[in-house]
């Protein structure tokens, strides 16, 4: 075991929390279940906001989850540098909480898309992608109805200029996402939002690849490096 603990939040309507827990365990970390109504993060080193339909996706996806008691603690910790990964609905929550720029809206063609998707990793400078090779291509499942990333042109230009686009769809854009963006990071690189689902690609029996493990392995490395730096500074 790595000694790294990763919290996985369950909201009412979360679907992929159990797969996220399994993915964390497969990567060699300890998974801690976090509950939306409990503001305590129980000392975890990183947090995953999983996919699903929190609060029934009422009003807008992620709009109500943003005000859950656990989210206040996560927002504070994220501003302090704690790694946070939002997958699908989790990405929507991070945008609603203004921890990431832009928004996720209805797919351009109005269809729910569920398929194995090829992506190109565009940035290694995030807590969740540092273990990939530059421009590495991966295949992980995508499944969303409101996964189209939108932002104003100025924001999109800034994201590209500052290396904040972490993954792009290739071989076909599943939802009309602007500039084929599948995932982004915040300025500091500790907060990442990703529409496709790495937690469903950690087991050869059920996933299209083991490519998803790269995201979870990256955060282990990020936490270990941060600990080594803190140790050296002592």
């Amino acid at each position: 075991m790595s000694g790294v603990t990763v919290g996985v939040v369950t909201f009412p309507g979360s679907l992929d929390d159990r797969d996220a827990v399994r993915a964390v365990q497969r990567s060699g970390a300890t998974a801690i279940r976090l509950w939306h109504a409990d503001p305590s993060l129980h000392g975890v080193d990183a947090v995953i906001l999983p996919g699903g339909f929190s609060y029934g996706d009422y009003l807008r996806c992620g709009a109500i989850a943003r005000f859950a008691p656990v989210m206040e603690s996560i927002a504070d910790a994220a501003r302090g540098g704690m790694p946070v990964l939002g997958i699908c609905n989790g990405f929507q929550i991070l945008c609603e909480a203004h921890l990431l720029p832009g928004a996720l809206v209805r797919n351009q063609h109005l269809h729910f898309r569920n398929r194995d998707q090829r992506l190109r990793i565009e940035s290694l400078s995030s807590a969740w992608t540092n273990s990939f090779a530059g421009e590495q291509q991966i295949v992980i499942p995508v499944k969303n109805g409101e996964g189209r990333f939108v932002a104003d042109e100025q924001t999109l230009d800034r994201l590209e200029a500052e290396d904040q686009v972490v993954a792009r769809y290739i071989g076909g854009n599943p939802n009309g996402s602007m500039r084929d963006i599948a995932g982004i990071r915040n300025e500091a690189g500790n907060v990442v939002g990703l529409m496709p689902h790495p937690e469903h690609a950690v087991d050869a029996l059920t996933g299209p690849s083991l490519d998803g493990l790269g995201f979870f392995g990256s955060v282990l490395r990020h936490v270990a490096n941060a600990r080594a730096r803190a140790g050296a500074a002592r």
Partner: protein
Amino acid sequence: MARVVVDVMLKPEILDPQGQAIASALPRLGVTGVASVRVGKRIEIEFAGEPDLAQAQQIADKLLANPVIEDFTIRVEPVAGTVA
């Protein structure tokens, strides 16, 4: 009782595929000459006493609309059966 009505619309520059789907169905009803359809949300907030517009503004800004993609308007509407 007083009612505050909040209308939330996607910003003009944000693509509205739902509106487009509706617009493309109109010729099937024999309706032509519609240039565009856009879909929004209407939210009714009923206050126990006097309508608190400042509070309604806050509710709309923080929760009902996402300022990245949506605009909203607020107005007070008389509730049927009550004296305005």
